[in-house]
């Protein structure tokens, strides 16, 4: 039940938040792209995996604002060569925002960026974790 509501919350609110947040200052002057993202949940935490090819350590900014929105901005340092004869991907900075549920502990967000993959882990608050109830015989 918990899982379902959190997932719906994300689906429902994300678009709006991205749309309103795009008016904000970006990391650079170039166009920003939405990174492909996986989100999964375990008993203890919510994990985001964002594809940020071209982003090195120190070039990604993560924040959770007062409205419970997780905001990720990243600067792409890869430069396209000139005279492209085949162009399948655009190169630019990345921006994406996600609405978080109230059951997450926003003070304990941790993140790791490696080989252009950003992993963000947000633990659930103690009271939101599933509890095993002992059955008295």
């Amino acid at each position: 039940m918990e899982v379902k509501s959190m997932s719906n919350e994300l689906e429902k609110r994300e678009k709006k938040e991205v749309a309103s947040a795009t008016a904000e200052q970006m990391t650079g002057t170039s166009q920003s792209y939405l990174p492909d993202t996986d989100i999964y949940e375990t008993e203890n935490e919510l994990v985001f995996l964002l594809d940020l090819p071209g982003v090195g350590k120190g070039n990604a900014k993560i924040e959770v604002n007062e409205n419970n929105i997780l905001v990720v901005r990243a600067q792409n340092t890869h430069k396209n060569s000139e005279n492209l004869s085949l162009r399948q991907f655009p190169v630019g900075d990345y921006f994406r925002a996600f609405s978080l549920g109230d059951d997450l502990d926003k003070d304990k967000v941790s993140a790791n960026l490696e080989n252009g993959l950003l992993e963000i882990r947000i633990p659930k608050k103690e009271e939101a974790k599933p509890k095993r109830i002992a059955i008295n015989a």
Partner: protein
Amino acid sequence: MYWSYFPSLAMEQMEQNLKNLLGDWGLGERTRSFPLVNLAEDDEQYILAAEMPGIKKEQVKVTVREGVLTLSGERDAGFDEEKVTLIREERSYGKFEKALRLPAKVDENKVKATFENGILTVVLPKAEEAKPKTIAINVN
């Protein structure tokens, strides 16, 4: 998931042009074949860039044989699907193989590959006979 791509460069470009024409290049829209590549060319060489976020360099194999550049390997999901509840799944993972036929002959012994921040760059110097030549014009 498993990808197998053996299009020629011309076919790949044609497909891309069609997608561009149909407006599949808007903000945030990404084509799905993994990895996405950009290929640049000048008189001396080809430079290929491939987006491979989350892949370690040991997981990628780059080969050039008879004018065909092949990128292959495997990308881990980064989690065990059986043990977690997936809320959103946009990234692709699994085995991949992508082959591109290069338009001109390259010196296969001088191909160099580097890997940085999830982007693979392959530099392929053209073979001597494929480089443009300047013909001296004798003026009497």
